[in-house]
């Protein structure tokens, strides 16, 4: 490590990283646009200017993202000249900016806004007409480009070159007429396009999915883990007015996904906002099903299961905590539970997606659950008198495999419509859980309640424990 002096405080800096990283790592914000810790430094936006004194030479202004750290270097991020240089730079960046913040989806998390507020000037001095370029250029299925808002930091171009290693974006044109576009105007491909909207420091690259959906300051952001494959990327689940999940974004995790996530995980939240979800429970009533409260449904389930040896199928979306509760219940029933293991979804790639659609396959195996493919599970259910299907998506994973009229008790987010269904008990979605998943590499991913489950939907481990208590007839 190299010792440098940052604003009068001695700190340790990684000699392999540029000066700006040392500042950020030590809690000193330095404005930046073209610099992104996950991409090669470009040094073109010129906003990260700081005052540097080294080697006995007089202080000079330097762009922190292209300045290597050296032993004893003194850095002053708050020098008058540095503030002035950044103010100038912001004035240039805003000269052609359309200033359409009121209708811009990035407003509120736009660093052009933030830094202008911090150290820009209050009024524009330019009277020239602003640049007119395409305002809604379609870049494919995922992204819309507003060329007028673009500040040409080229993060998106470098992301495609360096992270996906599939260059599709280019800077075209010269000087103030430069603009971002796709090569030969072809639509973009691949499943990492959504990251472009995250790394774009302004509102130039926006998600079609999120355009005009919510003002970002109305979103509550919660740490969670992506459910769409066994990589278990850390995510921020963003909920509008404590109700709908409006956006899922990657959250930096050094060991798993760094700054990125795939579009499969990013856009799989529609089902979380499904108004048709099960609340409370359902019980068989003659040939029909009738609504029940959760305790009623648990009582009914206990009645059906008591004294039976049901086939127990667990969802690979269960958390470790839920898995343990299910194991305890199975011990009570004297049966062995198996976890569903669907086939690869064929989406595996070199970057993040593993192709295994089960976020906790590894964790469930660690707990001792044997694996069962959906077709085999269907056969096991069909062969049994009674079956218990536990956990999120267990029904949808089995949907293509009919299992006759075996009596069923399900614990899922949705009700089962199968012929033999006796009891359905509501279970929460993963964004409503507190718990742990273990990813393909054995790394724990935390689930934190991003949204409270509606009344009548209890934590699955609680439901399983209640069911166990009901089976033994003991008092709670």
């Amino acid at each position, binding site marked *: 490590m190299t010792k440098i002096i940052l604003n009068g405080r001695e700190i340790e800096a990684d000699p392999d990283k540029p000066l700006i990283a040392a500042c950020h790592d030590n809690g000193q914000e330095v404005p930046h646009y073209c610099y992104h810790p996950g991409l090669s430094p*470009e*040094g*073109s*936006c*010129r*906003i990260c*200017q700081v005052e540097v004194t080294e080697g006995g030479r007089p202080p000079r*202004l330097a*762009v922190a993202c*292209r300045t*290597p750290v050296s032993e004893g270097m003194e850095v002053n991020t708050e020098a008058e000249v540095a503030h002035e*240089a950044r103010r*100038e*730079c912001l*004035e*240039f*960046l805003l*000269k*052609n900016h359309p200033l359409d913040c009121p209708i811009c989806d990035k407003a509120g998390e736009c660093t052009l806004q933030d830094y202008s507020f911090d150290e820009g000037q209050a009024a524009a*001095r*330019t009277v*020239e007409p602003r640049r007119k370029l395409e305002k809604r250029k379609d870049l494919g299925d995922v992204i819309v480009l507003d060329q007028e808002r673009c*500040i*040409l930091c080229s993060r998106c171009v470098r992301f495609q070159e360096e992270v996906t290693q599939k260059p599709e974006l280019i*800077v075209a*044109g*010269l*000087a*103030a*007429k*430069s603009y971002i576009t796709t090569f030969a105007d072809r639509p973009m491909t691949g499943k990492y396009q959504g990251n472009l909207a995250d790394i774009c420091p302004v509102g130039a690259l926006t998600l079609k999915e999120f355009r005009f959906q919510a003002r970002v300051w109305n979103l509550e952001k919660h740490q969670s883990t992506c459910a769409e494959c066994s990589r278990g990327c850390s995510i921020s689940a963003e909920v509008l007015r404590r109700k709908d999940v409006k956006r899922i974004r990657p959250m930096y995790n050094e060991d798993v996904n760094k700054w990125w996530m795939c579009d499969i995980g990013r856009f799989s939240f529609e089902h979380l906002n499904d108004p048709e979800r099960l609340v409370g429970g359902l019980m068989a009533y003659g040939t029909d099903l009738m609504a029940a409260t959760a305790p009623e449904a648990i009582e009914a389930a206990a009645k059906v299961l008591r004294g039976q040896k049901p086939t127990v199928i667990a969802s690979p979306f269960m958390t470790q905590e839920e898995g343990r509760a299910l194991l305890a219940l199975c011990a009570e029933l004297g049966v062995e539970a198996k976890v569903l293991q669907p086939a690869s979804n064929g989406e595996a790639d070199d970057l993040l997606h593993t192709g295994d659609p089960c976020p906790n396959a590894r964790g469930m195996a660690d707990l001792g659950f044997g694996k069962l493919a959906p077709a085999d599970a269907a056969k096991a259910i069909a062969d049994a008198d009674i079956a218990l299907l536990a956990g999120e998506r267990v029904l949808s994973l089995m949907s293509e495999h009919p299992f006759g009229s075996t009596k069923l008790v399900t614990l899922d987010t949705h009700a089962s419509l199968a012929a033999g269904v006796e009891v359905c008990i509501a279970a929460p979605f993963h964004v409503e859980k507190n718990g742990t998943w273990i990813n393909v590499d054995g790394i724990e991913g935390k689930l934190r309640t991003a949204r409270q489950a509606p009344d009548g939907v209890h934590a699955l481990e609680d439901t399983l424990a209640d069911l166990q208590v009901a089976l033994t007839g003991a008092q709670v």
Partner: protein
Amino acid sequence: MSGFETYLLSRAEKGDAHTLDGYKALGGYATLERALKDMSPEEVTAVVKDSGLRGRGGAGFPTGLKWTFMPDPEKDKRRRYLAINADESEPGTCKDRVIMDDDPHGMLEGILLACYAMRCEAAYIYVRGEYRHQYERTEQAVKDAYAAGIIGKDIFGSGFDCEVYMHKGAGAYICGEETGLMESLEGKRGHPRPKPPFPAGFGLWGQPTTVNNVETLFNVPFIVEKGAEWYRSMGTEKSPGNILIGISGSVNKPGVFEAPLGISARTLLESEDFAGGVWKGRKLKAWFTGGSSCGMVPASTIDTPMDHDSMMEIGSMLGTAAMIIIDDSQCVVRASEVVARFYDHESCGQCSQCREGTQWLHQIFRRIENGQGRLEDIDMLTAIASGMAPGKTICALSDAAAIPTNQVVKHFRDELEEHVRAKGCAINGTGACAHGHSADNQELEAQA
């Protein structure tokens, strides 16, 4: 010409020095052969260093010193390259063109000597795209030299190998910036690279590279042949040697002339040996000292010696020694607008200040010239220029746009203010610019 020794254009004037036979008949390649046989690479570098030769590409950096920045070949076994900057695009500059047209072998000899001195295994000549004739002449010279065994393997039996490749630019000014040139040679957009790393450590394809200007290398065979002392007998102490000076604009005899560094600019303008005075007997009003990037200085500075240090003293630069003369019937605001338009068009668009600043300067100069200027615009010009330079961007293009702006505000503020008050070009008092330039503007706007 008289009064001083000439060497740079001595062969060009003979007529057939561009052919291999013509060049050899005048003693060409003898210096290279002697150097390869009798001198070590270090000795070649040493004589160039001792001569005090300064780069002719505009910055005036000592060439011999630049060569010593290349890493020690014993310690660094990477491939080493020389890139020749023949992307001569500075407005007003046309000296390299004369060399490539009339004496391409002289340049090649310089290239081979430089490659030998720095142990470069290949040289890349990056020629401005518009220089078609010059490209063809140089390409023919390279072919002939290859056929004669002067380029290639085991040159003159010395065991020294060197390849020379030609590359045609596509018309971008920024590719004349050394790192932009390297990016362009690599097949990328001509976006200058941030420094460090410097080309000598991380150049073409990441290998040690030196970039030299055509005229710089053209000087090398003469220095190696006649020695450092001879070279220092010409020019000034800090800027030795002769230099090719391009004189254009409002003069009787525009052209490229050879003169020792330190010659008075007045001599260049007025002597019959050079430009022969201001056109139609008009009075000098302003002049660009070394191409558009160096900015305009007023007529009162015309007695300044043409060398690097004297030009710094009057707040300008020698640049590529390309004088552009503006007479008293012409408008400096219009000239500034044209210069600003050039940089607005040619900025590569990487750095925020340059991309937006060059456009802004152009817009303001255009408004002032067309009668929509405001008095506060004049101070705005300097405010913009101070945001763009010095040294605030990756390369010097931003500085090159800021310097002429600062110069015109410093020396010709009256004329700018007159334009604002008269709501247009004050020279003919009509509000429209002299020489019907407004019509040009509209046409150019329509094209843009």
